[in-house]
Each structure stands twice: as C-alpha cells, then as structure tokens.
C-alpha cells in the first residue's frame, strides 16, 4: 500500500469523501467485494450440484472424514447409473424433440405475426400487437387445468405433441414482441425498393426482411428453446407415461423414489439436464444479453 498517498492526491480533487478513502481500496470494497459475494452465491448451487454428481456415496454423506467442498475420489457411477439404468436418454430425447418442435412452430408463427404488425401496417395493428403482448401476462398456473381438458378433447393427452402445441402460448407473445423490435430496426426503404422492382410481398419477406432479421430470429430461437426446456407445469399435468416425460418432470417424478434420495444420481440428472441449455446459451450469449437488454429498452 505504498501508492496510497500518490493515489489519494490524484483523486482528492473531487469530493471530500474521496479524501478519506484511497480510491482503489474504496473501489475494491464497494464494487469487487460485493460482486464477488454475488457471484459466489449465484454460482454455489451449481458448484454443489456438480460436485455431488461426481462424489462416491461414502463421501457424499460423511462430512466428518471428508471435506464436503471437495472430492477425494471422483466417480462416474452416478452418471453411469443415470444413463444406463434409467430412462434418462429417452427423457433427454423427448425434451429435445419438444423444445425444437415448439421453437420452430413459435418462430414461424411469431415471425409472420411480427411482420404483419410492424411491416404491413393496417388499421388496428397496434391493438393486435398489444393483444399478443398481453397474452404473455396470462400465467400458465391459471391455464393448466382448463388446458388439460382441452388436450384430452383433442386426444393429445400424454403425447409430446400436446406440449409442442401448447408451449407457443407463452413463446409466441415473447418472440413476437422481440421480433417487432427487430423489424423496426430494418430500414423500410429496402422493402420499398424491392416493391418498385416488382417483387411480391412474400419474396420481399423471404429474400430481404428475413435475412436481415437473422440475429433477431436467433435470439428469439434461443429464448424459445430455453423456455420450453424449462417448462414444467404443463409437462407435469399433460404427460403421464414415463417415456414421454421431459427431463425436469421425469427427474422429479421418476428419480425421486422412497425416503432415501439418491442425491448423486439426482444431482447428476440436474447437471446433465442443465448442460444443453447452458451450452446453447453460452454459444449465443452475446445475442442473448443484447436482445434481453434491447427488449427491455423498447
């Protein structure tokens, strides 16, 4: 701390309270320390999840002889059990199928809707936009009971198709909202030029507007994928047979058995179930954060 004096003379000019503190120490106390605490707390459950997945059972429940924060002899037994003794691979496949299906359906519906609302501009288009946006505020907790009867009427009970058709109810409002913002940022003149050149509206959409909206489509796609991967209440209410369950529901209803919880396998299942979303997200994290912040700015 020999540079304290030099630092404080540099920074002293502003206000009296900076005189009292060396600005670097102050910065460490006010910014880095709380940030470190936040990161520690926000990431700890994942660390705990990961470390539990690789701990042998003997270590897992013996804090006296083993430091619980570390693994002395890591094992893949829990993951092996999960992959070979349970239907976990099937659940992963079902979840992937549902997430991809509902993502494509929602992207298709919301791209067209956003294009119509933002680009084709008709009387009442702001109200249609508002209506779709308000649909996002209707929470699934209110809808799942009547939706269950609708699903039964359609003969879709216990079928992953039900989830693919139902998830767009919360994906379409979100994606439409996001894509309207994106379409807004594309210069109108580009479309007008194409119109003058004799292109049809559909050609304009396919050849000009959509290619320019690709970043928006990607972020809407990531949002949809992660949201459908996470969805729980519909999957819990509409799916009964083990093979058709999605990962979050299956872990909770199929892996949690009896009074003795297999924490190793449970945490391994949670870890593996989180990985696809986390990987997918990390690939596109810049899109993700910028579109989230962009959507909020709107």
């Amino acid at each position, binding site marked *: 701390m020999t540079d304290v004096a030099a630092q404080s003379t540099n920074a002293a000019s502003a206000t009296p309270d900076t005189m009292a503190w060396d600005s670097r120490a102050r910065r460490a106390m006010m910014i880095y320390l709380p940030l470190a605490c936040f990161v520690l707390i*926000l990431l700890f*459950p994942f660390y705990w999840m990961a470390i539990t997945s690789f701990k042998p059972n003997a270590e897992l429940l013996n*804090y006296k002889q083993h430091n619980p924060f570390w693994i002395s002899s890591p094992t893949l037994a829990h993951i092996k059990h999960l992959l070979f003794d349970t239907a976990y691979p099937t659940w992963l496949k079902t979840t992937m199928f549902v997430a991809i299906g509902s993502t494509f359906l929602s992207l298709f519906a919301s791209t067209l809707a956003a294009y119509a609302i933002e680009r084709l501009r008709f009387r009442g288009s702001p109200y249609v936009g508002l209506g779709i946006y308000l649909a996002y505020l209707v929470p699934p*907790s209110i809808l799942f009971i009547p939706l269950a009867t609708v699903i039964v009427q359609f003969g879709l009970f216990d079928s992953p198709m039900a989830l693919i058709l139902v998830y767009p109810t919360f994906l379409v409002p979100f994606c439409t909202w996001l894509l309207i913002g994106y379409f807004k940022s594309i210069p109108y003149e580009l479309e007008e030029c194409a119109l003058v050149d004799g292109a049809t509206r559909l050609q304009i959409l396919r050849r000009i507007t959509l290619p320019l909206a690709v970043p928006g489509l990607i972020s809407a796609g990531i949002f949809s994928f992660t949201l459908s991967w996470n969805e729980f209440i519909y999957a819990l209410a509409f799916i009964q047979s083990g093979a058709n369950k999605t990962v979050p529901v299956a872990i909770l209803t199929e892996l949690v058995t009896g009074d003795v919880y297999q924490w190793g396998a449970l*945490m391994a299942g949670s870890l593996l179930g*989180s990985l696809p979303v986390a990987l997918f997200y990390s690939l596109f994290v810049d899109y993700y954060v910028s579109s989230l*912040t*962009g959507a909020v700015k709107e």
Partner: protein
Amino acid sequence: MSVTTLPSRGIALRQPGWIARLFDYKPFLIVMCLAPAIGLLTVFLTYPLGLGVWLAFTDTTIGQRGIFIGLENFQYLWTDPLWWGAVFYSVFYTAIATFGKFALGFWLALLLNNHFPLKSLLRAIVLLPWIVPTVLSALAFWWIYDPQFSIISYLLVDVLHIRSTNIDFLGTPWPARFSLIAANIWRGIPFVAISLLAGLQTISPSLYEAAMLDGATAWQRFRYITLPMMMPILAIVMTFSIIFTFTDFQLVYAITRGGPVNSTHLLATLAFQRGIAGGELGEGAAIAVSMIPFLVFATLFSYFGLARRKWQQGEAND
C-alpha cells in the same frame, strides 16, 4: 406479361402465379400472416382461459362433465383454511421475494454498470441461475436444505460453530417458507439485474457529470437521477416479476410440494393438488381463478404506483 397461358414450366415458374398474386393482396396477406399466431393463442390460451372461468362455476371432476353450481366452489374455498393459508403464503411469498429480488438485483445492476475487466463474461455468468431449468436448480436447493446433510448447517455448526444443531430447513413451517423465498430470490436476481442494467445504460452520463459539478453526493445522484430515470423500467420489470412470483409453481412443487403441514402451499400448487392430482377440476379451476383478482390488483399497484411516481418527478419521456 402475356405469357401466363404458356404451358412451359420454366416460364411459369418465373411469373408470379395466382397464389403469389393472392398473397400480394394486402388484406389477405395480413390475415394469412396473423393466422398462425392468433390461431394458436385463441385455441390454447383465450379459449382455455374462458373455459377455466366456466369450470370454476361447475362441479366437474376428471372423467365426468360437471353441471353449473354457481358460486358453490368459491363459497367452499371461503371456508377452507387451506385456501386461506395458500392466499396468505402467496401474498407473503410474492411480497418478500419481490422485495429481495429488486433490492439485490438493483444493487447487482449498479455493480455491473461499472467498468472492470471481464465485464461481459461476468454478465454471462450472472445470468446462469435464470437460464438453468428452475426445477433442476430447485433440486440443488432441496439438497442444500437437506435436514441431515445440509451444507449450510455444516458451515454453521461444524465450521463456524455459530449453532450447535442442524437447521430443519424444510421440516417446520416458517423455516420452510423462508427457504423457498430464498431460492426464489436466488433465481430471480439475474433477470432483475440484467433488465435494470439495460435501463441504467440508457441514462446519459452527462446527467451525472452535471450533478458531480454541482457537488451531489453518490447517494444524491442515486436518489435524484438514477431512481427517477429507472422508474418506467422498474414498473415494467416489477409487474412481470410480481405476476410470475405470485403464480409460481415449480419451486414449491419441487422442494416442499406444499408441506410441511400445508404451510407452503401457493395458490398454484393448491390448484394443482386439488384439480389435477385430486381430480376435482372444478374446484382446482376455482382456486386458479381466485388468483386473477390478486394479479390484477398487484399489476395495477406496481404499474401505476411506480408510473405515478415517475410523473410526479416530472419525467416525461415515453
């Protein structure tokens, strides 16, 4: 343009066919573009919402069509201590969790708004609790709250020697209630922080410079620049947060399923227990519908409460 009668495929492909020209008719195009979205939302959202309200006035059970019974379900709920318990805990859960999320999330947003190395990496890391499926992180919390092997108890008892016995996080009502709220806050902080960070970045630095020149302290800059400028975005984010916290289901279902002794039932978990697990669709629907007044009230409160303050501060943008 007189080649439309030619049978040659090569030419016909290049000319807009009648379908393409139909799509050039704007009203038709608009209808076709809106049809998938509106169709999906009508069949799977608007219709079920109406059906849910109707079911709430019937005695429908699984496998049996119900008849209209008027307000009977609601009269029953009014006398049902479990429903009152769920109302109490839903309001309590929402109030405390929202307060925690916004206090901590705002703080984190202010911290992330500073310049430091690896800023974007840190923002990405901070979002993780929000990305990972709630049920899966809830399971991690379940394990963290284990009565015997909780790592928190271990820290408090064996490392720090603050307590002499393990905490029974989920076995007794009040600790269970607060344990769930803590998990909810943990999950909600990233979304609040990143949304508010976006708002913070729209505030022009020149405002702070002017205030600094006038000798405003850090607290005054926060109180008279940051806070009023953030009101519109706070109103929106808080409205969202309240709606989704009040109707939360996953965390409670995954960690306590409403126990111990039904002390942590939210209205959504109670509706699931009665409606789907118990088969009483009508009663479950009534519980779900009983959330609506609270939601409307909370939405109006947060939205107009905060928006009015914005107006009082003389903010006139958007």
